[in-house]
């Protein structure tokens, strides 16, 4: 930290962090204004301060943390599965015209299907517990990742693959060692979208049928008009989004070190 260069970099980070806080604070400001001006009944929109106080109380509450943990684990498992599937299929399809010819029509038909409509089938085959919810997350999150991977892989500069193949890399290894890293910028963008979709869908699944998780807390509170309690899971998911964004940013910086756009 004593190195002045380090200080410059750290202060630049801080400055960017502070910038990012501005619109969020603005949003909270608007929220407060709406409440203060009586533009929304408190039964629908409680004051930010009230929500914050309840959040702080809940974030220390083991029961709440248990629910948050359930949601988080579903989210993590579902998202990672979608990532592996989406990237795997995308890379394979980009490499082989045969696979692509099969994958493309399937994607065309399956991607736009509202997966909630399949949820009854998921529940009845996979049960009420985690599996059906995770399946729903995967079914929705996989397509943004897959589409981004497909496109990214199709745009890989062929001479990179040629260079690797000529160095003795087998076609299959070239997929892992050239196409995959060269596609990373696209994949990370797809992953970011997939992550957001996962957040939404895990909530949705928990709202439709659940006995635990943040989504359950939310419907439970909404049904009985516990508006403040309803906002706590919402804030939690927002905060989670923010956290994951930071994590993705870090991963991006590391993984894309050499790419020109990470300058």
């Amino acid at each position: 930290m004593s190195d002045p260069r380090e200080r410059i970099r750290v202060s630049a980070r801080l400055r960017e962090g502070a910038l990012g806080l501005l619109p969020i604070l603005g949003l909270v400001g608007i929220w407060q204004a709406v409440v203060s001006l009586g533009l929304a009944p408190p039964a629908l929109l409680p004051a930010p301060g009230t929500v914050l106080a309840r959040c702080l109380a809940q974030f220390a509450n083991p029961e709440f943390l248990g629910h948050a943990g359930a949601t988080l684990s579903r989210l993590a498992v579902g998202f990672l599965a979608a990532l592996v599937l989406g990237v795997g299929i995308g890379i394979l399809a980009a490499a082989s015209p045969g696979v692509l010819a099969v994958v493309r029509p399937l994607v065309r038909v399956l991607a736009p299907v509202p997966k909630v409509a399949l949820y009854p089938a998921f529940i009845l085959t996979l049960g009420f517990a985690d599996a059906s919810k995770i399946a729903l997350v995967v079914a929705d999150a996989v397509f943004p990742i897959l589409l981004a991977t497909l496109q990214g892989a199709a745009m890989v500069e062929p001479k990179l693959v040629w260079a690797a193949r000529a160095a003795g890399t087998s076609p299959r290894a070239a997929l892992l060692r050239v196409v995959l890293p060269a596609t990373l910028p696209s994949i990370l963008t797809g992953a970011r979208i997939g992550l957001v979709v996962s957040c939404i869908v895990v909530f949705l699944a928990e709202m439709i049928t659940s006995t635990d998780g943040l989504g359950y807390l939310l419907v439970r509170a909404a049904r009985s008009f516990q508006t403040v309690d309803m906002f706590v899971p919402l804030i939690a998911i927002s905060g989670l989004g923010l956290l994951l964004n930071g994590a993705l940013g870090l991963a991006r910086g590391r993984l894309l070190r050499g790419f020109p756009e990470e300058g």
Partner: protein
Amino acid sequence: MSALAVPRAAGAPAAAPQIAIEGLSKAFRRRDGTLHAALSEIALDVAEGEFVSILGPSGCGKSTLLYIVGGFVAPSAGAVRVGGAPVTGPGPDRGPVFQEFALFPWKTVLGNVAYGLRAQGVPRREAEARARALVAQVGLSGFEAFYPKELSGGMKQRVALARTLAYDPAILLMDEPFGALDAHTRTRLQNDLLALWERDRKTVLFVTHGVDEAVFLSDRVVVMTRSPGRIRAVVDIDLPRPRHRAELLLNPRYQRHVIALEGMLEDGDGPRPGGRP
């Protein structure tokens, strides 16, 4: 045509050729469906251990020819055999150095150079040690940890060169490998390449725009016509080896070769599009 220009038929040299190119044509299909002829009826045999340079006007198909020999691009007609077997794809026996470098942007200089060795199963420590030596040889010591985007054009070119030399392919397919270098660095690397070649007797197919470079390095020089590229002449460079630049410059045969080749190149006038394949 100068008396020194000895057009050779595609007839095989004494030994079975290492690279046998026969009746090779290539036409690219463009977006609008039309065909654009890049190469036409190329026939050329390269013996094992031979150093063959290719000269020709910009856009005449030199790079395309290397791509086809490398197995990266399929020809429209004709065939290439390497070591007797038809080329169906790339292989570690033929190492390309691309005109556009094609470095892996996610790897450092060292990572790029060590790539081929790692791909062939050399343990990391050893691969890196050998890569480090090559990086030094191309004059980039100290830049091992730089990423391609942090390098100048000439530095990238040298990394690309080192990357291919590192895994020691039997055949080198080099596309203007010294094009972006200053005279001094180029001379040094030419000498290094020549020393390497004289030691290991690699087969080299070398695209260049430098007539003197071609004459200095090669056993034979192939001159191509403008687009669609055909072979116009194949010139034997009957200069003694080992060659030293200073001596050669005083050798009248060297001068005559250079002048003859320049003369042959003179009457091309750049490529002409839409040649029917």
